[in-house]
């Protein structure tokens, strides 16, 4: 069995502050995982046993919850996260071709990060922009009626 990775002192401090802030909350695990990911950019493996103990659940349960949800990552993402909607409404206005363009330009597939760590490409199933698709989200910023030109401008800026 491999050694359990450990958090640095500063990270441990941050984690304890997060756990403290959620004390007494009903169903606190998802809010805790969101807060950890917001603080660290991902959910470090070493954080899970600490969270599990705090929430009085097993490590397996904590891992089970974290790995169930698409949002939580075990590794840091690229500096820019590009999410492209793959759902039906966006498909009906050309989302598939746009996704092919993005994958080709970046040289990566879904869920992958460019070698230089600049861009992570994620599929998303609906951003609620279904009347102005194809829809995209770039580091939290929404883009409607996305096309190759808009995407290129965004990617040229962040690469």
């Amino acid at each position, binding site marked *: 069995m491999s050694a359990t990775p450990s958090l640095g002192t500063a990270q441990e401090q941050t984690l304890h502050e997060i756990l403290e802030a959620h004390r007494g909350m*009903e*169903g*606190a*695990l*998802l*809010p805790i*995982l*969101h807060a950890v990911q917001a603080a660290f950019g991902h959910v470090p493996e070493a954080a899970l046993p600490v969270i599990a103990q705090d*929430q009085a659940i097993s490590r397996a349960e904590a891992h*089970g*919850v974290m790995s*169930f*949800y*698409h*949002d*939580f990552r075990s590794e840091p993402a690229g500096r820019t996260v590009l999410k492209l909607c793959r*759902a*039906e*409404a*966006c*498909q*009906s*206005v050309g989302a598939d071709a746009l996704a092919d363009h993005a994958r080709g330009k970046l040289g990566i597939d879904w869920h992958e990060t460019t070698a230089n760590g600049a861009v992570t490409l994620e599929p*998303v*199933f*609906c*951003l*609620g*922009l*279904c*009347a*102005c*698709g194809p*829809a995209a*989200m770039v580091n*939290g910023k*929404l*883009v*409607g*009626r996305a096309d190759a030109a808009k995407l290129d401008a965004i990617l040229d800026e962040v690469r």
Partner: protein
Amino acid sequence: MKLYVPMDSAAVALGADDVAAAIRAEADKRGVALTLVRNGSRGMVWLEPLVEIETDAGRLAFGPMDPADVPALFDDAAAHPKALGLTDKLPWMARQTRLTFARVGLTDPLSLDDYQAHGGLNGLKRALTMTPAQVVQDVTASGLRGRGGAGFPTGIKWKTVLDARAAQKYIVCNADEGDSATFADRMLMEGDPLTLIEGMVIAGIAVGATRGYVYTRSEYPVAIDQKRQAIAVARAAGVLGARVLGSDHAFDMEVRVGAGAYVCGEETSLLNSLEGKRGVVRAKPPLPALEGFLGQPTVVNNVISLASVPVILDKGAAFYQDFGLGRSRGTMALQLAGNVRRGGLFEAAFGLTLGEIVNDIGGGTATGRPVKAVQVGGPLGAWFPPALFDTPFTYEDFAAKDGLIGHAGLTVADDSLDMLAMARFAMEFCAIESCGKCTPCRIGAVRGVETLDRVAAGDASALPLLTDLCTTMKAGSLCALGGFTPYPVMSAVTHFPDDFARAREAAE
């Protein structure tokens, strides 16, 4: 000068923030005293960013606006090239029956004064003069049914929770609007978040619940932020708290954010997620109304169901019940999406035909090509061909045509769409999003993708297998994810057989 520029996600995604910044800069440059309200969207997404100027005659609309169009607004506005006339007189607005969305786009979403000036809190105030049983009776008599898609009578659900005995009951708002083509929940939470709060407080009073949760999506950052701010506004004004509007009723609520799992829109999966567990579906019974959040009696209602409650309490059950057709009473927030000329939100009484919605209101496709198919009710809804455009928009009429209205999202597609590819996508989506609890969904969806690949490769024996698989998924799945994925698949097979035969012909 008073101007409105929406803060709605769709408007922002099309550049509303840049337009708002340009307006501020231009007003500064000209020394014009400016009041800029960031309102909700009027729902005419094809005209976003839609800017409005307040005049004595009403609000004048301009759109779609670009920052370059801004300076001319400060000159002769009526002669502006993007001038559309009075917003209320635009055909899209004039044809609607806005009950649930009455204030969306009209008010400053976070102003309680503005909210009350437009009828806000009237429903809650009336509810506070009634007994809980009377409130439940009003909601039952209104004919309101679950707007999330299942269409279960809201009043009956509330009665079950009211009659349950427990130390703690909950109101959970299902705002996990993951269906493609739907954005009504998002628009309401962004454009009139106080209405949802009022609806949840009324629900709490009606069933004896003192705590509420809004479970929404991480993909909706603007709605989350807006909702949280609105809760703070409501709390400061005593709409939420230990004594709701000075009464003996306590109610408070918070927003919880999902983490990208589509299946959490299913109510039992949502409850597990809210409890901090994997979003796995629970078997029913027990009903959430009796054993819901943390095992306590819980009302789980969709955003639009809860947001329709204030107007019902304000204007009365008979008023609301008066709209609609057959057993589908009241109004529905239709969401026109995809390849459609005029996309957006259109609230109307039940009963318009699908053809009226797609062609008259939506104006057909954006590309100008013929409409090939319309998917009604999100990823789990059936694809309807133009031959079925005479179907009236009601729960029952769509069920009779092997479809569903769901959350009333409509994806319009032109003749370039390959229905075999869409059927495959439906299975692929189900495989990605399955919670894994039941076999027909977890394994069936994977087999479905494989079987459709065989169809695509020209294997004639695969189609009967697909039909058989769909029957198993429909009858044997625990929830609507596996149970309804056959709707888009089989409707594509039934109504668009050519798309499934092409590969076979090529192979032969």
